[in-house]
């Protein structure tokens, strides 16, 4: 019975009393290593097996109704972490629970609680947005007539008019397709929403529309949101807390203000650092210490010098 209390179709109040204290997401020492498959054919030998530590001993606790951002350079493991949370990848070690349910053992229950938007809008390209979204809605146990209403309303709010809804998706621009992908996730009103670069490729106004939606999902549906982004202003505007991940490890975690203060302290600045400085600081190939700053004169100069040294090494 306990499982069924969590169904998203139930009024949220029934689960609130039981879940109040519980974490929405609990990631404990999770590691994921990818191995490049060994070549099959003799003439492909030579490319030796290679491993990538995509997620390395990551621990993270996300509270209910929190919006948490994950920042990091390309290939730092953000999408891999999100895939683990969405039951698409099984971690090598460690444990992830979502509202107390293990993503590997209880994957069937976890899937009812989550939805995910990925950076590439994945659809049946010949089908229309309506056909694609109705399909998705039915999989999430939403009846057709209700889904149709919601689809028109959500897409309308994202600026996709009724005329486009019946046209094949392949005729739409990349940004419009991305909006349909976002609508797909909002449609099912998930308790935990995983957004992997949801606004990449959207115009500034649409970005704001999506941000408003994300906030609304939290206010109205008590949703918890985990998002990755390369847009630092977006992270700043939207996130209660931000985690910075570098080479699969979380190197910083805190509210935007906390991170700015911390970097200000480490860099010896007079005013809080900008988000840009925070990002550069934590993802630099060599962590820039106070000593470096003294030696080179300023953080920027130290950064340039150390980056130049790294390039020479390579």
């Amino acid at each position, binding site marked *: 019975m306990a499982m*069924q209390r969590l169904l998203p*179709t139930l009024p949220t109040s029934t689960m609130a009393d039981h879940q109040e204290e519980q974490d929405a997401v609990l990631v404990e020492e999770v590691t994921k290593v*990818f*191995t490049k*498959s060994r070549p099959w054919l003799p003439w492909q030998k030579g490319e030796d097996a290679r491993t990538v530590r995509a997620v390395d001993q990551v621990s993270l606790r996300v509270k209910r109704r929190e919006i948490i951002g994950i920042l990091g350079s390309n290939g730092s493991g953000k999408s*891999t972490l999100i*895939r683990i949370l*969405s*039951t*698409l*990848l*099984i971690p*090598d070690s460690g444990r992830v629970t979502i509202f107390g349910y293990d993503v590997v053992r209880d994957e*069937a229950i976890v*899937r*009812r609680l*989550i*939805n*995910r938007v*990925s950076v*590439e809008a*994945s*659809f*049946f*390209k*010949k*089908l229309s947005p309506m*056909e694609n979204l*109705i*399909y*998705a809605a*039915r*999989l*999430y*146990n*939403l*009846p057709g007539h209700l889904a149709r209403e919601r689809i028109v309303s959500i897409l309308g709010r994202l600026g996709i008019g009724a005329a486009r809804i019946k046209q*094949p998706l392949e005729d739409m621009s990349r940004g419009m397709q991305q909006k349909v992908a976002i609508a*797909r996730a909002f449609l099912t009103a998930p308790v935990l929403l995983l957004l992997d670069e949801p606004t990449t490729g959207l115009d500034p106004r649409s970005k704001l529309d999506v941000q408003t939606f994300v906030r609304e999902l939290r206010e109205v549906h008590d949703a918890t949101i985990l998002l990755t982004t390369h847009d630092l202003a977006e992270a700043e505007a939207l996130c209660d807390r931000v985690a910075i991940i570098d080479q699969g490890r979380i190197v910083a975690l805190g509210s935007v203000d906390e991170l700015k203060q911390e970097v200000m302290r480490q860099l010896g600045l007079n005013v809080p650092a900008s988000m840009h400085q925070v990002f550069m600081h934590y993802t630099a190939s060599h962590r820039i210490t106070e000593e470096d700053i003294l030696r080179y004169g300023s953080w920027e100069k130290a950064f340039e010098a150390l980056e130049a040294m790294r390039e020479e090494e390579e």
Partner: protein
Amino acid sequence: MMFNALVHRGRATYAFFERNWNLTRRYWAWEIVWLLYNIVNALSVTFIGAAAEQITGAKVKFDTNSLLLVLVIGTSVWSYLSVTFDGVTDIINMERWEGTIEYTFMAPISRFTHMVGSCLYAVAHGLLFTLIQLLVIAAFFHIDLSHANYLTALFLLLLGSISFIGFGIGAAILPLLYTEKGMQMSFIVKAVLLLVSGVYYPISVLPGWMQPLARISPATYVLEGLRAAIMQGRPLWSPEIWSCTWPLILTGLISVPASVYAFSLAERYAKRTGKLKRNG
């Protein structure tokens, strides 16, 4: 709550059916090309039968009608088998192609529901496709169907479909595990079935080492049974039909659970090694 779960299952099954129907409609040109291709193929094979007397120069009167029937049944069953089989392997193939696989695998439905929805469509699609082909072929040749027992024929076709689905799910594992090469591999499975199942000839002409393969292929029994039903009008309860029915029940009972189980293992493996992702 039980009821709600059932409604959800029904809705999801319908979702796959509806989606595949929409895809068929949008790719209608491809559908027509494929139908034409199958019809032309079936025609050219059947003409071999019509020309048998001339090709062999046989002096005695040849039973052309039997040969035609053997070939027409062969081409029809083959069409049905390949359309259904492709429909089932499309559980993975098409989703890989479109890049939607992660979304379907993340949806809150059991893999079994997913398969039932896709397979129901595959069977319906296969039946319709084959019926159209059969009507066209029938217009070209004078075939004597006065002995046919259609009830037996339909029964065997549907019973055989269960095993085709089992084999199809088994073949769908290949594109799940091998991102690029898997699709070609599932074609090979189909080609081997064509070779060993006696689609155009009795399996007795196959070399001895191929005979066991013929005996585990469900298509062999569907073809044998259909020929007995349509050419000799055998009823359902006759020993000839029963000798095809029980192997089909057996292959169905074994192949469906076995391949669903193997599929679940493959899915776990894919999730462990990151093979669900489209690129790399």
